[in-house]
């Protein structure tokens, strides 16, 4: 089965990977993104993720649809965590099952790249002496009048 979810609870990679398993596939490929301690040499105390929830879910569902049209894959699960995350905790898990491994690797890689580009979720880094809302790579973002989000 496919799923796109937001949650404020810790992510369990194993159970997410397991939910995408169909009986005809023998493997899943899973991307696990997590909070690193250092960003550009600066120490992060913790992160906060905020989502435009209704739109984020729609965009994640679109990505799943596009991935299933583009790659020969069976099932996709995407779960993104929101709220406060400690160092080392998983922020996002994307799991893809496919009859042939190659497609699962390609789809999973495509999905995380597109998620970072299009899904309306933002990360705030909190340091000992301040905080900063991280802004995405402008060059790859979808902007008004620039219909890359078909």
């Amino acid at each position: 089965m496919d799923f796109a979810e937001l949650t404020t609870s810790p992510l369990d990679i194993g159970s997410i990977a397991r939910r995408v398993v169909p009986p005809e596939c023998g493997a899943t490929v899973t991307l696990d993104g997590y909070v690193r301690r250092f960003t550009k040499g600066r120490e992060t105390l913790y992160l906060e993720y905020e989502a435009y929830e209704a739109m984020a879910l729609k965009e994640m569902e679109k990505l799943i649809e596009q991935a299933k049209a583009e790659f020969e894959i069976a099932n996709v699960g995407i779960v993104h965590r929101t709220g406060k995350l400690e160092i080392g905790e998983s922020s996002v898990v994307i799991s893809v099952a496919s009859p042939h491994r190659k497609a699962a690797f390609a789809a999973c890689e495509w999905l995380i790249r597109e998620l970072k580009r299009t899904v309306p979720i933002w990360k705030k880094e909190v340091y000992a002496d301040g905080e900063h809302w991280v802004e995405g790579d402008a060059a790859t973002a979808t902007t008004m009048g620039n219909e890359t989000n078909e």
Partner: protein
Amino acid sequence: MKLQVLFFGATASISGKRSFQVETDEGMHVCAVFERILIEHPSLTAHKLLFSVNQQYATGEEIVREGDELAIFTAVSGG
């Protein structure tokens, strides 16, 4: 005619607002509405901004309708 406008993350933090209403005329293009909002919040224009209408990325060509939900936010940074 009233429209709902949402800010998130950096745009909410900079403006001090998360949600408010704007009055618009019938038949306006959303790009004109967004321009009007940015005039009210000039500090946002220093950022790379994205725009949505009813939870879809906006082209700017949409004609606003009563009850539309608009949002303005910085380039996304999830993942």
